[in-house]
Structures are given as C-alpha cells and as structure tokens.
C-alpha cells in the first residue's frame, strides 16, 4: 500500500506499477513485429476477442489487419498499467490493452489522440 501511495502521489500519470509494465509491453512489441514481418495471423491472435471479431467482419482477420496499414509501432516510449488496463505509447502508435485470464491482449491499435474525446483507433474492440 505504501508503494502504491508513493507511486501515485510522486509518480506521474504513467506511473502505473513499473513491474507490471513488462507483459503488456512484450505483447505490443510482438504484435508490431508480427505485422512488420507479414505474420498478420499471429498479430490477430494477440488481439482481444472482440477487437479481432470487429476486424474480421468482412474478411478473415489476417487479411483485414494487413490491409488496414497500421503505422509501424517503433520504440516503446511509455507504458502505463492501471488495474487490468494498459496503454503502450510508441514512437509511431499508441496501443490499449486489457488483461484477460490468459494474459494481455490488444483492445485498440492505430490510435490517434483526439482530446478531450477518447483516442480515435483503427482497430477497436
């Protein structure tokens, strides 16, 4: 509890428990690596079920995801983890993830800020 207090009070908005940042960061990096190397099916497997279903509304997920032309992720700049939600800011994109029973999955990718409204995302659950 003392750690959480110090973290929240002294840290910034992205403070969200550094030890927990690893898994969502790793999933995000695998997602963009798979896309960059033409393994869209593998990238689809890293999407949250609802996001994958939405992408695959008109054609199979791998083809639809490859066709979206998501920006290259690039280097990870910041990871924020709060509860079961995470945001990974990269040089070329911002990604939102949710922690499910079987691990972190991407809920939204290809996101552009649109303050004060939510991010406008190409892929969204």
């Amino acid at each position, binding site marked *: 509890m003392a750690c959480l207090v110090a973290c929240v009070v002294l840290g910034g908005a992205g403070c969200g428990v550094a030890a927990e940042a690893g898994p969502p960061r790793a999933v995000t990096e695998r997602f963009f690596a798979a896309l960059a190397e033409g393994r869209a099916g593998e990238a689809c497997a890293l999407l949250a079920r609802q996001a994958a279903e939405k992408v695959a509304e008109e054609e199979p997920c791998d083809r639809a995801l490859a066709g979206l032309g998501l920006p290259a992720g690039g280097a990870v700049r910041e990871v924020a983890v709060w509860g079961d939600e995470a945001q990974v800011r990269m040089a070329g994109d911002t990604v939102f993830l949710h922690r499910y029973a079987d691990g972190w999955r991407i809920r939204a990718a290809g996101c552009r800020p649109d303050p004060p409204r*939510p991010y406008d995302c190409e892929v969204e659950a």
Partner: protein
Amino acid sequence: MKRFLRDNGLTLFFLGAFLLSLLGQALAGQARYNEQQLTDGGDPIPLLSYVGSSDFAVDVAENWQSEYLQFLLFIVVTVWLVQRGSPESKRIKDIGDESEEQQQMGAYAHEESPGWARGYGWRRSVYANSLGLVMGLIFVLSWLGQSVAGTAAYNAERLSRLQDPVSWGQYLGSAEFWSRTFQNWQSEMLAVASMVVLSIYLRQRASPESKPVGEAHATTGEEN
C-alpha cells in the same frame, strides 16, 4: 465473559455491524464489478482480488473520510457553537474552551484523572485536544487513501475508455474526485443538522442521545 459483553456491548455491536456491512459491500461490489467485466468482454475476478482492487478501496475510503470528518467537525465545532434546546449541544453559558476547573485539568485534576491531564505544557495541550487530533488524522489519511485509490480506479476506467491516464495532482482537481467527496459530505452534514434539531423536540426514552421524555424543549445540553 458475560460481564465483559455487557460492559462493552456498544463497541462490540458496532464493530460487528461494521464487519458485516464491509463484507456485504465486498460481495455486492464484486458482483457489480463482475457484471461490468462480462459486459465489457472481460473475465470475472474472485472476491479476494476485488477486495484488493482500487475500485473497492476508493469506495471504502470515500465513506470513511466523510464519517470521520463529520465526527471531527461535531467534536470541534460544538466547543464554540451551541443549539438552544438540543441535548447534542453544551449549555449556552459554557461556549468556548471552558475553565480548567470545569475540565478537571492541571491544578483541578483529581486522583483518577489521566496522567497527561494532571501535567502542564505540551502534553496537557495535546491530551486536551487528542480526540479531535486523532479523528482529524484518520480523516486526512482516509481522504488521502481515497485520492490514491481513486486515481488508480479512475485511470483504469479512463484506459478502458481509450483515454490517457491522469496524474494524482490532476485527479485531485477532477470532477470525479470532488463528486465522490461532496456526495458523501452533504449526507453527513444533513444527518448532524437533523440530529441536532430533531432532538430538541423529539425523544427516545432512555437513550443518552436524547433528553428525558418529559424534559422541556428549551432545556439545552447537560441541564437535563
């Protein structure tokens, strides 16, 4: 054992009621949380995980801080403010700090007075205000707890809505924080005001919170 239960019944009753209520809040809160999780396509969580979550912590802390604020204000404000006819008020002529003789402190302390009430200097000053100080400390810590757990819960909610998280400082200035705070404060202030005024005219036989049933409406404080 019987005697212990009788002598401490008030504390034991409220501690028991507190624990049962907290359990009820945890169970109902977990059910509500899991309902939302399923709606959002997430997985339900076990009770222990919910009890350790910022959602549960902020709901608990926001109620605690307002209760301790209510008692802190009631304890401190009643030193200087009175209500004619209310048993919750002291007598009109006693407004203020009262004399050391009335407070049985310093030279007027008796054999059974607490040690720090008999002494002089900072110990006596601290002890003379210790109830308010401790209630105030618990209020501040609970409010801090509300703000910390609230930041975590609010940020999880913002991320789920595809919005950037905020810092603790930003959360302290947010409508979310002040809405949670004021909605609790208003009910506490209303409850105290009602108790002070209703106890002028209404009675509860044999309750120390009430005047005796036949006491005049105009009687204030310990005159009864």
